[in-house]
């Protein structure tokens, strides 16, 4: 398959791990879009998109990330990104999504960022 999607939980944060490519081909982006919209519809409000193993994206993936970000914001939730690199990072940077959507290099830091400030260990 072009895109493998796996979903796990860490406390109240839902982590979506993406591996492969998210492009318009073979319905990969459509499949990702459906999965993310289903999560939001089922009440997920803290979503971390792990892009570490995502090798390739096109504009369809950008549209899905933007749509999910807007949907979550509308519901009072949060979308954050983890470890984009290479071409994926370049595409997200081109659209200034990296400065709009909080992006982390480290999963523990990303998870901590979802918690209210008073509860985090970092100063």
């Amino acid at each position, binding site marked *: 398959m*072009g895109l493998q999607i796996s979903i796990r939980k860490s406390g109240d944060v839902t982590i979506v791990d993406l591996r*492969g*490519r998210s492009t*318009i*081909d*073979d319905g990969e*982006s*459509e499949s990702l*879009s459906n999965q993310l919209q289903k999560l939001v519809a089922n009440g997920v409000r803290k979503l971390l998109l792990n892009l570490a193993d995502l*090798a390739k994206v*096109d*504009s*369809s993936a*950008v*549209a*899905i990330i*933007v*749509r999910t970000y*807007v949907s979550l914001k509308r519901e009072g939730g949060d979308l954050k990104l983890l470890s984009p690199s290479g*071409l994926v990072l*370049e*595409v997200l940077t*081109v*659209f*200034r*999504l990296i400065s*709009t959507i909080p992006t982390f290099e480290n999963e523990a830091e990303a998870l901590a960022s979802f918690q209210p400030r008073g509860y985090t260990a970092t100063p």
Partner: protein
Amino acid sequence: MTTHCSDGAAPATEKTALVVESGRDIDELLTSVLASEGWTIQRVVDNQHLLALAGAKPFDLIVTGRKTHLAEDVELLRKIRNARPHVRLIILTDKFTPGDVIAAMREGAFSYFSAPFDASELAEMVRAAMAEPCWDDGIEVLSGTPEWISLTARCDLATADRLVQFLHGVRDPSIPEAEKDQVILAFREILINAMEHGGHFDASQHVEISFIRARRAIACRVKDPGKGFSLEELRHAAAGNSPGDLFSHATVRDEKGMRPGGFGILLAKKLVDELIYNEKGNEVVLVKYLDPPKTPMI
């Protein structure tokens, strides 16, 4: 256009691939992809044995070995296609020249991978070759020199992917890989827009394409078969939003029941130096400027 899909190869339940040995990693990858779909694999050590077998009976897919020169693989393809015009042949090679890629397209290779290449991309292309029902009128080279290639491409995603892979296979040392990747990504966005909005992914429609390699620039021209559009009226694309606004067009797309998208033109604009549409809006040229070549001091 009449499309023939097979040369009398076996029905869907008995698919066979003919593969030239390329080394353990590639051989294992091909075995894994082909066997997972129940295909039988017949291996040979070189092109000579491949030609003998391919002449004797039809195969559903042929993959060449990395060790032969691309020009030899193209010659092999020409001979096989004389007898089996619809053969799907994927060329793998470590040895090539830019002009050979044009020949591979012209002779109707299904795809082409020049070293170094990404194994996962090869796996995807093999899957595409296994799945694609009718393919061999997808790309037609109308004219080709290393500086100027003109071709047509059928309006479907599989053909777009094949064409993009041919572009990735072009290795021109004077074009930095990062800039080449940007041009290819921008071209792919514009191509898919042309196929979707101009050709409605109708396989009877074709997009006209030219690639021009000037000394200090790369240019691509894409003309779709549609009626065109005006960028000013493009409310369903991010390119029509106010500067800095990434979201307004998404509402329009939701109202129209369109898939999430609309970022293709904007992405292409940001990856190349110029994106120029004609008056009608069905023809576009992308230009990427390159740093001047470093000439030795005399």
